[in-house]
């Protein structure tokens, strides 16, 4: 018998919101990735290895494609902290995928400057074309669509980031079918690149 009064909220009120990543296959860094991690960890004082936690997760994500519970345990062991410390970080930051994603993750900026330039229609067109909702991966496993908050390139609105690092600027909603087809066929070289520096070049246009 609870000492709380009866709550009118119905089922699920006391349900935890804890969202665990997938268990995934067994994971350990490759030798080269382990070396890369140690190089980055050397940037911080020896007793502050935890500072390298984001870098450790990026490297793991690069190796496996997403962050699983196995990754969390391995990273905790490599850094010397608890898996809870790592899970805390993984579930806070938006750039870690906690389940498998497509080859290209399309991260469409949805915040005001991009929205004023038609970002909502960009997302709509992509979703319509791929038959998915934001957050989902298409049937072929090629594209995952995500809505992102301000990407910091508002002068090039609307902006789409791909796989956390590649950029496509001035994405017209009406060009989406061609853009997806190009990306499928030519890969990342189909992208416009970021800001003053187009992909594959080093100079402003």
């Amino acid at each position: 018998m609870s000492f709380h009064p009866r709550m009118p909220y119905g089922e699920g009120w006391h349900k935890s919101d804890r969202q665990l990543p997938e268990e995934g296959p067994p994971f350990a860094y490759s030798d080269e990735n382990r070396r890369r991690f140690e190089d980055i960890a050397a940037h911080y004082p020896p007793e502050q290895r935890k500072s390298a936690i984001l870098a450790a997760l990026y490297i793991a994500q690069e190796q496996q494609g997403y962050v699983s519970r196995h990754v969390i345990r391995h990273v905790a062991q490599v850094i010397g902290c608890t898996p809870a410390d790592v899970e805390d970080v993984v579930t806070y930051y938006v750039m870690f995928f906690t389940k498998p994603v497509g080859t290209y993750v399309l991260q469409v900026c949805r915040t005001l400057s991009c929205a004023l330039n038609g970002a909502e229609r960009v997302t709509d067109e992509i979703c319509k074309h791929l038959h998915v909702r934001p957050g989902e991966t298409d049937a072929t496993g090629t594209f995952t669509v995500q809505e992102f908050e301000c990407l910091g390139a508002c002068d090039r609105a609307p902006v789409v980031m791909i796989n956390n690092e590649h950029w496509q600027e001035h994405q017209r909603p009406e060009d989406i079918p061609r853009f997806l087809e190009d990306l499928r066929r030519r890969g990342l070289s189909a992208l416009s690149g970021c800001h003053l520096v187009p992909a594959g070049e080093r100079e402003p246009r």
Partner: protein
Amino acid sequence: MAQFEPVLTRYVKEPGSYTLDFHVQHGGYEAMRKAVAMTPDAIIDELKKSGLRGRGGAGFPTGMKWGFVPKDNPKPKYLLINADESEPGTFKDHVLLERNPHLLFEGCVIGCRAIGAKVCYIYIRGEFYHMQRQLEAEIAKARAAGYLGPNILGSGQDCEIYVHRGAGAYEAGEETALIESLEGKRAQPRIKPPFPAVVGLYGCPTVVNNVETVCNVPPIIERGAAWFAAIGPEKNQGPKLFCVSGHVKRPGTYEAHMGITLRELIYDYAGGIRNDRKIKAIIPGGSSVNVILPDKLDTQASFDALVAAGTMLGSAACIVMDETTDMVWAAKNLIHFYKHESCGKCTPCREGVDWLYKILDKISRGDGEMRDIDLLLNVCNNIGGKTLCPFGDAEIAPVVSTIQHFRHEYEAYIKQGIATPADYRSASPAGAH
């Protein structure tokens, strides 16, 4: 258009402006050479005299901030560069990092000299990975040339610069949250005091500065505080980067002094409004400041003048909305951003912003009631000033100011019971030709 000789962005459009060779050929690292021969106090004095104010949003005097670092503290000291540029509408540090990184490194060395630090971390937002690789390559080159690393140019000053990549958290732009994130935790703010100048990264004295602020330091050292103080209006001196985006013909980063007006910024620099429409509203300092009406167009874009006009310069990100913009939709868009980015530490912010979004969503679906407008203001009143960091004040600005200026639009939604029209969703992007 006011004539202004760019200082920070003078060479950004030239090929190879990001390289070490280019920087050295154009007088780079001279300020650093001068500074490493100066005493820390002399550097801080020069900054205080220049009147340089932080460019991240709060406008706090940089010389004073550096002066707060205790000299007798035996712990190591740290300089952190805040390159977590996430304020909606802001993309000024983007240009500096991409096209003028050595100016930043030079500023970092001078900063380290002034506060007695030997290590500097550049906290770059996760989305700027392409820049991190370039920054690290340039750091390695500068280090090989003796401009960074141990015993810089034989002066006895050490400075190591490391780039730390975040992973997508707006809140990491707040200085104590940035420190938490760098320590490998969630980016959530700390209670102040103690201030980072006394207890910061790893419990050591720490200074957190914006990229643009630090980029202003080498020119001050090189050309003198008097030169800097003569640029722009009193107490708002120095070159400033302004980002103009939204419904303008030429969105972009423009460098000017803070004596220019919003009208000059929008019409002269950014080319005016697309399709020659009228302006409906302006957000002059990133999404966290109050929306103002076009009757304030002749206000100076300076820290003090914009505060007098009821808003703030913030990160100098001017988002312009034309007469076709639906202000309830715009407020809802920004509240979606804040709802997503609230770090969850303080209850008023975490719960309040969720309620703001729910009520705005209800209104924009056409299901609103008249009392919802007052309910919105009531919720805002319970968030503002009641949180550890300025996020709480930031998230209520779009709601309070749009209700203040565009209450009739909220009422129209409620009275007519219509949802946001689907055809509102805006047309082709400005820059796509």
